[in-house]
């Protein structure tokens, strides 16, 4: 070849072998990114300065072979054939060398000098893969270099070898693939014929072309027809058919197969994979984390952390969104309505009291869900989630399920709908049904607001106790229900074997984690802007429309005289024994069927009659002030979130008796963030009124919360149940939860009265 001083080399390799890190290490910042002519495939060129040489490096598209199955493959081989790089660096993943060599030996067949780079050597070694580099180099007849990404040691050796090549000081004798006697002689025949066509042998290496002809390479066939070599093609076809008749397999399959057996031959005694698995750090961790004794406390700490994470860390942002929606956003809406002349009309009521209060009341919980989903995704991505199933296996066995059923139940703490779909990971249909039946008792994120509101209203600073009790009661009910079903419906069900793959522990991939969280939040937002929006509008109208002509006028009717009020009044007596037989609570429970978030939303509509007090006429001028307020409160919320994250440590340590670590209070707010809203005040009054006294009201409030915890899951969940298990199972679930929740609420209230609690 004529040495023009301009040296070009190419990088080739399978996809995902770290080719571009090698490329970057060689070329540094001297890169040019463009497209291959006429294709959408990216072409990267770079300049490497090695010694006193200036070498152009071309990064070929990642391919598994050079068989023209894809445009990438055509580009790669055309480049090697037509642009004559002085050298091709074949980059291979050392851990998967067998498959990677398939490409490397095809490059060798193009009769171009090749250096084989075994990349990601660290990963391979970690997996116990060992390669005798010298012997491999000897057998292939080309230099073989081990590299670890862009790390300098391997790259330096590669650069040295590159220099030797470009100086022509390193002669190589590349191996020739033995295709077996039948194919070899056919290839010989074809090769001699190709060599007679000077126009072909000048462009293509004759042996290679012969191989391609027997492989029925469509791209080359087309080119040969174009250049008028039909007779050669015809001859190749005849030979091909002859061999196929003799051997019983087509030549393309034969050639592919022989290449693989050639690779096996080359690697025999060169590549060693471990017969025994090596103990990893993951295993060492598992000795402890999945221990029958230590595993359970570790698991409980994890659950506690999630609970802290979702409930407390998200609280500042919850308050922030709440402030933005009830303050500036409401003011802007009012101002806007004022501009179009709709102030004080029923439209204003619908927008402010209906849509903003209802949908806004749901959007408020986006931060809670964000942190919950983040926690769940983190647990999954680190590999702990699967371990929790392992640890809980013994508990789940008590109710006739196994550890794997625990995963959907965990998801149920976030949202019941994905939990029901998560039961698909269970192989056994009965396991699936039973698990799905229990998922609604895992108190989902949407029920949390109800506990929060009631907790602050009735228990003040001790609201956390009510919340935690609700979660525990939910779990207890799930276990008891499982136990009951095991004794009755599933009496004859044999225990299913537990089998689960445990991924290795790893540092979570934040891109993955955030993508998951984003998807879930999107679903939630879609829900809020469709189902919940629609239901709040319907409820608003039902509240605004009088039940009869004598009851009042549209939008001016007393809430208890509205259609919604009279409907709820019809149902209310049912809850009399449970202590909350008012139409207001009955009404909010009805809307809770649409979505559990709606319970608080409806209560906001019913109990709090006055329109957002912040609304005054001249809101238009306050825009910049509002923006400043939004931004400054956001900053505050961010600080508080960091503070709450840090506070998890003292709060967790304080669980240990005798330990009292102070919690951070960076903005000097000391529990001031829990503002007793007008709703909470209204609730205490209303419940005491219905039940008869303050303490009775408190008891009724607890009963109400238990009812919310246990009664019919939301519409979406019911639909998911039907979708997954059919209408009968869904109906059974509705009947069971309704009966159970009513009985439980009545027992709590009446039992409390009997015990003299009130």
């Amino acid at each position, binding site marked *: 070849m004529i040495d023009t001083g301009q040296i070009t080399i190419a990088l080739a390799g399978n996809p995902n072998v770290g080719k571009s890190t090698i490329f970057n290490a060689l070329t540094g910042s001297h890169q040019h990114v463009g497209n291959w002519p006429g294709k959408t495939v990216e072409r990267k060129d770079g300049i490497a300065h090695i010694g006193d040489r200036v070498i152009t490096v071309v990064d070929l598209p990642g391919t598994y072979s050079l068989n023209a199955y894809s445009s990438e493959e055509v580009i790669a081989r055309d480049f090697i054939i037509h642009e004559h790089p002085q050298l091709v660096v074949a980059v291979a993943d050392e851990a998967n060398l067998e498959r990677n060599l398939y490409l490397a030996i095809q490059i060798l067949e193009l009769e171009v000098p090749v250096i084989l780079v075994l990349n990601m050597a660290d990963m391979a070694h970690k997996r116990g893969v060992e390669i005798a580099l010298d012997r491999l180099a000897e057998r292939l007849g080309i230099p073989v270099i081990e590299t670890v990404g862009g790390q300098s040691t391997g790259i330096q050796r590669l650069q040295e070898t590159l220099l030797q090549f470009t100086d022509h000081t390193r002669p190589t004798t590349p191996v020739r693939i033995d295709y077996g006697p039948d194919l070899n002689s056919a290839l010989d025949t074809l090769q001699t014929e190709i060599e007679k066509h000077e126009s072909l042998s000048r462009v293509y290496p004759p042996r290679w072309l012969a191989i391609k002809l027997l492989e029925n390479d469509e791209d080359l066939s087309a080119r040969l027809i174009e250049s008028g070599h039909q007779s050669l093609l015809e001859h190749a076809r005849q030979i091909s058919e002859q061999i196929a008749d003799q051997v019983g397999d087509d030549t393309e399959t034969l050639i592919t197969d022989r290449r693989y057996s050639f690779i096996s031959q080359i690697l025999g005694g060169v590549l060693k994979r471990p017969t*025994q*698995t090596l103990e990893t750090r993951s295993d060492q961790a598992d000795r402890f984390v999945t221990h029958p004794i230590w595993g359970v406390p570790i698991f409980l700490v994890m659950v506690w952390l999630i609970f802290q994470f979702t409930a407390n860390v998200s609280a500042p942002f919850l308050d922030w969104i709440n402030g933005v929606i009830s303050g500036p956003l409401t003011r802007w809406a009012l101002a806007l309505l004022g501009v179009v002349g709709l102030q004080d009309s029923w439209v204003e009521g619908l927008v402010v009291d209906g849509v903003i209060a209802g949908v806004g009341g749901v959007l408020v919980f986006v931060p809670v869900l964000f942190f919950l989903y983040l926690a769940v995704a983190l647990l999954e991505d680190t590999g702990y989630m699967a371990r929790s199933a*392992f640890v809980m*296996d*013994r508990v789940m066995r008590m109710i006739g399920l196994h550890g794997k059923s625990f995963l959907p139940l965990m998801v149920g703490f976030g949202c019941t709908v994905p939990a029901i779909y998560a039961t698909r990971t269970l192989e056994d249909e009965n396991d699936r049904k039973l698990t799905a039946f229990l998922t609604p008792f895992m108190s989902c994120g949407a029920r949390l607001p109800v506990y929060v509101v009631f907790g602050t209203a009735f228990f003040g600073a001790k609201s956390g106790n009510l919340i935690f009790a609700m979660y525990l009661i939910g779990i207890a009910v799930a276990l008891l229900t499982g136990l009951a079903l095991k004794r009755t419906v599933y009496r004859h069900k044999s225990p299913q074997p537990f089998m689960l793959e*445990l991924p290795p522990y790893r540092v979570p991939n934040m891109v993955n984690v955030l993508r998951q969280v984003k998807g879930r939040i999107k679903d939630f937002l879609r829900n809020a802007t469709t189902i919940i929006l629609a239901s709040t509008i319907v409820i608003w109208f039902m509240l605004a429309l009088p039940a009869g002509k004598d009851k009042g006028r549209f939008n001016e009717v007393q809430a208890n005289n509205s259609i919604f009020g009279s409907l709820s009044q019809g149902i209310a007596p049912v809850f009399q024994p449970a202590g909350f037989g008012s139409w207001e609570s009955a009404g909010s429970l009805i809307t809770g069927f649409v979505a559990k978030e709606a319970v608080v939303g409806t209560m906001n509509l019913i109990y709090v009659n006055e329109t957002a007090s912040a609304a005054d006429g001249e809101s238009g001028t306050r825009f910049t002030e509002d923006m400043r307020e939004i931004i400054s409160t956001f900053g505050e919320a961010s600080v508080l979130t960091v503070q709450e994250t840090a506070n998890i440590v003292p709060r967790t340590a304080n669980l240990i008796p005798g330990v009292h670590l102070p919690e951070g209070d960076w903005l000097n707010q000391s529990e001031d963030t829990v503002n007793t809203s007008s709703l909470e005040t209204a609730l205490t009054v209303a419940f005491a009124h219905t039940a008869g006294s303050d303490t009775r009201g408190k008891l009724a409030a607890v009963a109400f919360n238990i009812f919310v915890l246990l009664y019919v899951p939301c519409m979406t969940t019911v639909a998911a149940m039907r979708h997954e298990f059919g209408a009968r199972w869904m109906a059974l679930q509705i009947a069971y939860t309704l009966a159970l929740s009513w009985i439980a609420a009545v027992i709590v209230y009446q039992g409390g009265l009997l015990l003299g609690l009130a």
Partner: protein
Amino acid sequence: MSNADQPPQAMMMLSMVSPGETVEVIRIGEGRRLRKRLADLGLTAGLQVRVVQNCFAGPLILAVKQDCRLAIGRGMAHKIQVCPYKTHSDKG
């Protein structure tokens, strides 16, 4: 098989193997379904497995492949017959 001329090896249940030991799976107990499901997860007769976690109760963790661990219930482990794994002296 080369094992044929060796004295009969001590067979035991997988559930009795202590953590850290490597054993060879000899037989997977009755049930075609069970066998198939275990095979799907990469556990078949003739395979070497290392026991990662095995305590007095609860499921076991096995290392079947280098980068994945398999948890199986204790009941199932009772049904899997294994024998201590002897490292072969032949080297490719």
